[in-house]
């Protein structure tokens, strides 16, 4: 057992001291800090709140109209009134009346000139539409894809249209007050009353997303490092000295555990960076608007994701170590670990694509298959409905697989590290395994 800790300590110290570790950690810390501070940084460049109100011109005298009562000029005036009535900090548009001459071509020239000299950002043209009985609007501006302005104009026009219909204020209010619809997710099977509200669902979804990514990234990054460590030890022949000093089981699991601690340290650093950044006063305000309440996280989900994260990591890690041990040169490693990477990728995609459909048969079945369940079970627990016994069975299957594959990996490892030359076939490996004692 002391050998195990010696190997763990040595792996941990050497990895954390290595340039690769320091550089990648630093880069991610910088990226994380930037992303969290981005809303604030953007708001710095925006300047004052008033600057982002667009001025939209319209011509006060326009010839084409449907009927004399609702002229384009009147619609423009209504719009102007509507935008002016909005509170100043959420106002996006302001209408600017421009004196027209009655001649369409001359008016257009005037409007274009106004854009050129900067007094307006764009202008509105209204063309009568016989089928709807109202006007079609064209927003002219120099910008491409100016969706926010057209969207804003659509809402404005929709509202002022009711003026044309001659509705009373009371009728208008009834029409435009949005209807509240809220969703509550329940578990029909267990009959428990506790449903998840929309915000809880949101937070769970976020956590599931984060866990899927975290597991996938950890397996990819750490697994590859474990495999390449083993291959390097083998190709540098230090393995021959090592296996005469320490049992292969201790040396393999010591390495895996050491790498696990390195990964844990890295995650802890990232979480620390996130917490520090979120608590910077300028950021608490910006993020508070996103309406995330961390107390909504369900503890069941947290525990289940943690359990499956750990078991998932160790299941893959033992196999990565075994693969590393049968490869003699680092160049061949990428190809050799490919099947494992695809397996992990399959689990990851199963989880990702079924986030919105967590109760399908495919999800139910795969949540019991060892290599996929760490991803899929987290999805089921987070956004689907699952019974406790199902989680228990799936976890048990995971533990048994870890035990069996750990034993097999140790055997492969033991045999593989002494086989040099080309990558052995399964048949050769089995033959060789019989020759070594365990």
């Amino acid at each position: 057992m002391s050998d195990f800790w010696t190997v763990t300590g040595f792996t941990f110290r050497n990895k954390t001291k290595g340039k690769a570790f320091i550089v990648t950690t630093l880069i991610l810390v910088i990226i994380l800090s930037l992303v969290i501070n981005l809303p604030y940084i953007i708001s710095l460049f925006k300047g004052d709140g008033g600057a982002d109100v667009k001025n939209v011109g319209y011509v006060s005298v326009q010839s084409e109209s449907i009927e004399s009562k609702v002229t384009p000029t009147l619609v423009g005036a209504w719009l102007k009134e509507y935008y002016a009535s909005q509170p100043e900090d959420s106002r996006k548009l302001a209408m600017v009346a421009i004196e027209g001459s009655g001649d369409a071509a001359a008016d257009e020239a005037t409007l274009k000139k106004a854009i050129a000299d900067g007094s307006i950002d764009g202008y509105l043209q209204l063309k009568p539409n016989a089928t709807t009985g109202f006007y079609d609007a064209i927003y002219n501006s120099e910008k491409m894809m100016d969706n926010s302005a057209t969207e804003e104009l659509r809402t404005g026009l929709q509202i002022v249209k009711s003026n044309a219909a001659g509705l009373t204020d009371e009728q208008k209010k009834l029409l435009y007050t949005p209807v509240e619809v809220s969703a509550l997710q329940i578990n029909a099977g267990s009959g428990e009353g506790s449903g998840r509200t929309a915000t809880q669902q949101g937070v769970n979804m976020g956590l599931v997303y984060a866990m899927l990514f975290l597991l996938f990234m950890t397996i990819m990054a750490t697994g590859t490092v474990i495999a390449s460590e083993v291959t390097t030890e083998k190709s540098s022949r230090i393995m021959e000295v090592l296996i005469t000093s320490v049992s292969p089981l201790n040396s393999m699991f010591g390495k895996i555990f050491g790498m696990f601690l390195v990964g844990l340290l890295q995650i802890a650093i990232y979480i620390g960076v996130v917490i520090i950044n979120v608590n910077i006063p300028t950021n608490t305000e910006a993020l508070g608007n996103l309406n995330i309440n961390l107390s909504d996280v369900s503890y069941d989900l947290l525990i289940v994701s943690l359990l499956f994260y750990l078991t998932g990591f160790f299941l893959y890690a033992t196999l990565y170590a075994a693969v590393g041990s049968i490869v003699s040169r680092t160049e061949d490693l990428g190809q050799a670990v490919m099947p494992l990477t695809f397996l992990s990728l399959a689990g990851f995609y199963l989880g990702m694509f079924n986030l919105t459909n967590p109760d399908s048969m495919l999800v139910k079945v795969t949540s019991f298959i060892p290599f996929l369940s760490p991803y899929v079970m987290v999805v089921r627990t987070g956004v689907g409905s699952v019974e406790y016994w199902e989680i228990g069975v799936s976890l048990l299957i995971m533990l048994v697989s870890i035990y069996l594959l750990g034993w097999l990996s140790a055997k492969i490892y033991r045999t593989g590290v002494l086989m040099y030359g080309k990558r052995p076939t399964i048949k050769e490996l089995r033959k060789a395994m019989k020759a070594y004692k365990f």
Partner: protein
Amino acid sequence: MKPLVVDRVVKQYGDKTAVNGISLEVDRGEIYGLLGANGAGKTTTMRMVLGLIFPDEGQILYDGKPYAKEQLQRIGYLPEERGLYPKVKVSEQLVYLARLKGMTASAADKSLKNWLERFNVPEYYDKRVEELSKGNQQKIQFIATIIHSPQLLILDEAFSGLDPVNVELLKSTVKELRDNGSTILFSTHRMEHVEELCRNITILHRSNEQVKGSLKEIKGRFPRERVRLTAESEITGLEELPGVLGVKLLEQGGYEIRIADEASGRGILHHAMSQSEISRFEIMEPTLNEIFIKTVGESHE
């Protein structure tokens, strides 16, 4: 009870026999030479002694007991192909390896410093292995093998790649370990090292024991077929003498004469004395090199 007894071990890989019934016994304070051409089964034998591979037949006893995990800590192994972590400091990896052998970190550190001092390279303590020359890496590897003062040492090609000064240094260390009671199994292709260090040897050929026994006894078994002759002036007509197979003029003066049997020596001495003053006349023992080439080479045909 001998510390290491290998008793008729057999190892097969598939249908190929790698080691076929090899036996040897090594005493405390003895260096046992395991010789053989490339692929003769030396490394397989050593791996079986190390407990890495299980013999198909026969047994290996350590102080009369079969292999157990605890033996790992008393064994020091210098593999044929050297390996250390290239990017890790000498001090760190040697202390690590010593700790895996059951030493405490502080004892390992002290032992390492002693050995570095002994090998005149104390400044390597803080260096990374990749910064050292190949010969110096060898020294470090050697220290890694003996840092925990093992009772059983297995040295595969111990002195390859070293300059003569360092060979002497390591050789004297090996002798010292022997005199302190270590049991050493030693393999090399340098026959002069074997002659200098080993009491008993085995020459392996194609998985079989070809020649085995004490060095002295083996040499006695092979006929003396060489005469070394040094005289004041030139001696002519040596080739025509009965029993002489060939005459070679040596660069440093004198002749080396190959003879059919020891009795022919007499005639050569008479002939030489009649021509000149003789400063040296010796019927030479066969060198191990000759014995090796003879045993391994002959059966090649």
